[in-house]
């Protein structure tokens, strides 16, 4: 089977910065291990942004933490699959090696920048630290580079602000510092885990523009996790939709949002208010995400799906298959017959 994801070709640079294949991860919480993500495959090419969307509990964060080698620190275990970064399978490498290579291959920026920074050190020191450790710069060189990085994330008076402690900065400023720190060792992949969710809209706009400019300049690939589909629509080239630990749909951003093929994707789009929404008109998905120990048989979305049919949707396993040979993968047996609504492209 050639899936849409495999057919996806890039002319300029054909080597992905991140290639995840058939990744399965489980957590053992006391008793039996629980499989939380199941056979997930995708890739991210240099200079592009891939969106990862889905509700809480769909496996987005576990996927990201696996790709950045952090999953073992939260008790997760990679059962199967490969994660290729920079030509190396990183699923089996020891933590000590991860510490050496992480800032150069896969940096992360998180939702709550203020919590990710150390309150006891100035922001300049925190950026300089990683440069001293990983790039072996001297104290003085590292500081100068930290100031340059702060300047590159559009923090004015960078030399002065480098001496500030995190609490002296606003949320947006802290996120700029996080970006500077993440990019300090020039990683090939930036994992952005809800980077603007905690920020005001005007600040969010500035951060998204900054990320876009830096990406154009430095050419890193971005894995962008968000539950805000409108943001994803704006920043992503391709989008992966996850539900209950599986990829349920994958496609090009504009096509996927305009013509969703999976009822879950259509439900998410309908639940997301946009500036084109009309008063008192908002769709929703009934129910909640099942817990990982309790995934339903058949299509995992079927208990919440208005299109679910007895037996064909409720039994066996349903594969992610390429849809109509377009650049689209869908995990829905009724994908061909359903007429689903997407959102207007703004």
């Amino acid at each position, binding site marked *: 089977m050639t899936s849409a994801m495999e057919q996806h070709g890039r002319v300029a640079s054909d080597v992905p910065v991140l290639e995840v294949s058939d990744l399965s991860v489980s957590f053992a919480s006391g008793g039996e291990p629980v499989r939380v993500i199941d056979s997930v495959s995708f890739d991210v090419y240099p200079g592009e942004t891939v969106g990862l969307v889905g509700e809480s509990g769909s496996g987005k964060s576990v996927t990201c933490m696996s790709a950045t080698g952090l999953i073992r620190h939260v008790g997760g275990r990679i059962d199967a699959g490969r994660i290729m970064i920079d030509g190396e399978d990183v699923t089996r490498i020891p933590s000590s090696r991860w510490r050496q290579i992480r800032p150069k291959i896969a940096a992360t920026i998180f939702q709550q920048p203020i919590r990710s920074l150390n309150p006891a050190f100035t922001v300049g020191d925190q950026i300089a630290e990683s440069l001293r450790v990983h790039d072996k710069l001297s104290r003085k060189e590292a500081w100068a580079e930290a100031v340059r990085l702060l300047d590159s994330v559009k923090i004015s008076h960078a030399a002065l602000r480098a001496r500030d402690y995190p609490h002296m900065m606003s949320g947006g400023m802290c996120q700029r510092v996080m970006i500077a720190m993440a990019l300090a060792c020039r990683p090939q992949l930036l994992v952005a885990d809800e980077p603007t969710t905690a920020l005001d*809209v005007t600040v969010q706009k500035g951060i998204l523009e900054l990320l876009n400019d830096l990406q154009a300049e430095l050419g890193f690939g971005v894995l962008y996790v968000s*539950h*805000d589909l409108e943001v994803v629509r704006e920043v992503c080239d391709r989008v992966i939709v996850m539900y209950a630990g599986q990829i349920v749909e994958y496609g090009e951003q504009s096509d996927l949002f305009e013509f969703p093929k999976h009822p879950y994707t259509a439900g998410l789009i309908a639940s997301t*208010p946009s500036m084109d929404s009309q*008063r*008192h008109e*908002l769709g*929703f*998905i009934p129910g909640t995400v099942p817990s990982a120990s309790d995934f339903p048989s058949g299509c995992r979305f079927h208990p919440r799906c208005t299109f679910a049919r007895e037996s064909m949707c409720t039994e066996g396993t349903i594969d992610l298959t390429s849809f109509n040979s377009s650049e689209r993968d869908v995990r829905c047996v009724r994908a061909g017959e359903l007429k689903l609504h997407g959102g207007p492209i703004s």
Partner: protein
Amino acid sequence: MTILSAQHLSKSFGKSKRKVIAVDDVSLTLERASTLAIVGESGAGKSTVGRLLLRLIEPDTGRIEFDGHSLRDLPPREMRRQRRRLQMIFQDPSTSLDPLMTVGQTLEEAFRVHFQMDRKERLDRMHELLAQVGLGMHHARRRPVELSGGQIQRVSIARALACQPDVLVCDEPVSALDVSIGAQITNLLLELQSAHGLSLVYISHDLRMVKIIADEIVVMRGGRVVESGNAAEVFHDPASEYTRELLEAIPGNGAHRR
């Protein structure tokens, strides 16, 4: 018809050099069975206004009128009676309920304080309230830790409805929830409004959600009202530069994309 209005509300915190003016001369009007949205960025004073309206914090100056009463002139005893009619739900559902009380106890407390009901009436009412917010009687035995964020927010709404309020102040009711669950809660609020004629004050920084729910809108910045009016008109043709900036910053409304 106006149910709740405020004139020239001001509130500052701290003294002398450290004084912060959180709300500065804010006036607004909520019509019966409609939704007034208060929008703005962090620190604009939206939540403070919400709390001032219910006298959860006391304004420094200004007048609040609720259904013909001047709220600030009411004696404490009468104020307590009016409080039943003015309820609030908060942003972080996990901290807005008493963790030691079951859902049933939380609801019963509202009955006990505000109504005289016998056991059968209480159970019937609890059943009715839980059904209204899409929960069942089996949820009544649970404590907040045993519920999801969306379920807790439903309980908060049920608890507010238990008092049979006229006005419900919702302070960022869905911003801590998943988009899909937020959509469920928003739809629930709209249903309750059309079924019971609830008047809503909806405090939010999410202008997209406000566009769906609001009839009237107040835009705040730095404690002051920068613009107010009919929601459709404000969205269509904002009068102030700041509102325009806010609207342009909304994802899907601008062009951050290459």
